[in-house]
C-alpha cells in the first residue's frame, strides 16, 4: 500500500508545486493587467471574463466569452491579435464597435499587461507574453491634445454654415452613435448600456462645447474615467455632439418616471 501511495503522492505534489510555481512566478505585469481588467473590462466581460458582466445583457452582439467555455476562440488568437483588438477597438478590426478603442488611453505596457492577464483566463498553447527587462514596453500613456472652447466655436463656424448643414450633421451623428458603439455603454431613449450615464437628456443638461471636448478627450477632464478616447475624427465628433445636443427628453424613455433608475441599485 505504501509503495502505491508513493507513486501517486510524488507526481501529484510535483504537479502541485509546478502549478503553484507557475502561478506564483508570473510577472507582476499580470497582476497589473488584472487591475486594469477589473476596472475597464469586467463590466461587460464579467469578473472572470465569461462574458457575463452587469452590462453584458445590454450588448448586441454579446460580449466575448474570454474563457473559451463554449468554443475555442481566444485560444486561436495570437497575442498581437488580442493587442490589436484592445488597441484599435472592435471597429478597428471589423468586429462589433461596442468593444471600445483603448489605444489612445493605455500605454503599450498596459495593453500588453492586459493581454498577459487575458491569456490566463483560457487555456492556450501559444507563447506567453514576454516582458523583457532589457527592452521594456513603453509605459507612457498616449498624449492627446486638449480641446478648448474656442476650438469648438471655430469648428462650428467652419462646418455648420447653415441649418441644412446642421441637420445633416445631426442625422450623421445619430448614425455615428451606433457606429462608434456609444450605445454599448450609454442609454438613449431606453436602449443601450448602463456603464456610463444615460444620455437621453444630454442636450438639456450639458453645454455643447463640453460635450465636444469630453468626447474628443475624456481623460483631459477625468484621468481615471472609463470612457475611452475613441479617436474620432473632428467631423464625426462634431456630428455626435450635435446629435446629443438634440436630446432633451424630459423622460428617459419607457418607464414614465422621468428618472434614471432602471437597472441601477440603490446605495
Amino acid at each position, binding site marked *: 500500500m505504501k509503495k502505491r501511495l508513493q507513486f501517486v503522492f510524488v507526481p501529484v505534489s510535483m504537479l502541485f508545486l509546478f502549478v503553484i510555481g507557475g502561478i506564483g512566478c508570473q510577472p507582476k505585469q499580470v497582476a497589473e493587467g488584472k487591475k486594469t481588467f477589473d476596472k475597464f473590462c469586467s463590466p461587460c466581460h464579467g469578473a472572470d471574463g465569461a462574458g457575463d458582466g*452587469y452590462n453584458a445583457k445590454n450588448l448586441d452582439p454579446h460580449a466575448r466569452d474570454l474563457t473559451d467555455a463554449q468554443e475555442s476562440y481566444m485560444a486561436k488568437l495570437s497575442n498581437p491579435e488580442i493587442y490589436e483588438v484592445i488597441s484599435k477597438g472592435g471597429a478597428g478590426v471589423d468586429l462589433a464597435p461596442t468593444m471600445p478603442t483603448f489605444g489612445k488611453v493605455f500605454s503599450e505596457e498596459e495593453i500588453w499587461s492586459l493581454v498577459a492577464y487575458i491569456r490566463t483566463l483560457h487555456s492556450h498553447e501559444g507563447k506567453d507574453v514576454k516582458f523583457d527587462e532589457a527592452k521594456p514596453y513603453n509605459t507612457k500613456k498616449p498624449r492627446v491634445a486638449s480641446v478648448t472652447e474656442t476650438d469648438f466655436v471655430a469648428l462650428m463656424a467652419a462646418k455648420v454654415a447653415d441649418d441644412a448643414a446642421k441637420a445633416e450633421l445631426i442625422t450623421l451623428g445619430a448614425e455615428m452613435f451606433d457606429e462608434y458603439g456609444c450605445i454599448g455603454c450609454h442609454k438613449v431613449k431606453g436602449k443601450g448600456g448602463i456603464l456610463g450615464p444615460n444620455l437621453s437628456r444630454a442636450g438639456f*443638461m*450639458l*453645454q455643447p462645447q463640453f460635450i465636444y471636448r469630453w468626447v474628443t478627450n475624456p481623460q483631459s*477632464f477625468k484621468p481615471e474615467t472609463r470612457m475611452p478616447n475613441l479617436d474620432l475624427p473632428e467631423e464625426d465628433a462634431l456630428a455626435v455632439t450635435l446629435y446629443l445636443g438634440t436630446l432633451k427628453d424630459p423622460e428617459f424613455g419607457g418607464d414614465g418616471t422621468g*428618472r434614471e433608475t432602471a437597472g441601477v441599485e*440603490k446605495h
Partner: protein
Amino acid sequence: MYILKVLIFVASILSGFAYIALQIPQEVSMPPQEEKFDAAKVKTVDDIVDIGQKIFFGKGQCALCHALGGGTSGRCPNLGGENPVGIKLTREFEYETYTNPEAYVYIDYTDSPPKRFAARMPEINKPPIGLTEPEMLTVFAFLQKNSGTVEITPEEVIALANPHKKEAGASPAFVAAVEVIPMGDSVSGKAVFEKLECGGCHKIGTLSGGDKGPDLLPALNTKEISVVRSAIFEKSDHHGSYEEKATVKEMKDLLSYLVGLKEVKKGVDGA
C-alpha cells in the same frame, strides 16, 4: 463619619476634573452672522462670486454634502475637480437641479455596477434652505469660477433681485439675461455682427442690410432683450440657431452692440 468622607472624596475628584478643564485654553465659538442678499452690494463679477461662495458654505448648506474637487464623491456628486459643473452644465439644468432635484436622479458611475448616491438633494428654493433666485445664480457663478471663467454678469443677478424685471422676463431665471443690459463690449459686438453676417438678411434702421429678414430696429425698440436673445440664439422656425456659432462672450458683445442701437425714448422707458 464615613458619608462625609465619601462626599469630600467625591467633591475633590470633581473639583480636580474642573480644575484640569480650566487649565486648557478657554475658547468660545460664536455663531456666524446671517447673510442677507443685498443687491446694492453687487458691482463686479468678484462680488457675485464672493456672495456665491459665502452662500455655498453657509446659508445654502451645499458644503454639507458637496465637495469642490479633490478626492472621491461620497454621498453626493463632487462639484469641482474632475467634474467641472461650472463649464459642464447648462443654466437650464442648474436651475432645474436647484428647484426640482428629483427630476434627474444622479447616479455614481464610478462604481461597478453604478449606484445611486446616498444623499437626496433638497429643493434649494424652499425652506429650510430657501435661497432666492439671485442667490441661486450667485452660487452658480461661484461654481463657474471654480471650474473656469464666470459667464454670469452682475447685471443678471441684480435684475433677478428686482421683481419687476422678472415678470418682464417670464423665462426660467437662469436662462435668459432677463431685462438687463449685458455688459459686453459693443465694439467687439459689431465685429461679431459682421462675422455672423447678420447684415446679410437684416437692416437696422438706417444701417443698410439685406431684405430677407425684417428690420431689426422696431424689434429692438419694443421687445425685451431676452426675446431678442432667444430669437438669435435659440432655434425658431424662421431663424437658425446661432448658439453654437458664437462663444458666450461673443453673444454678450453682440447683444451689447444691438442694445446700443436701440432708440431710447426719454421719459417713457429707461431712466
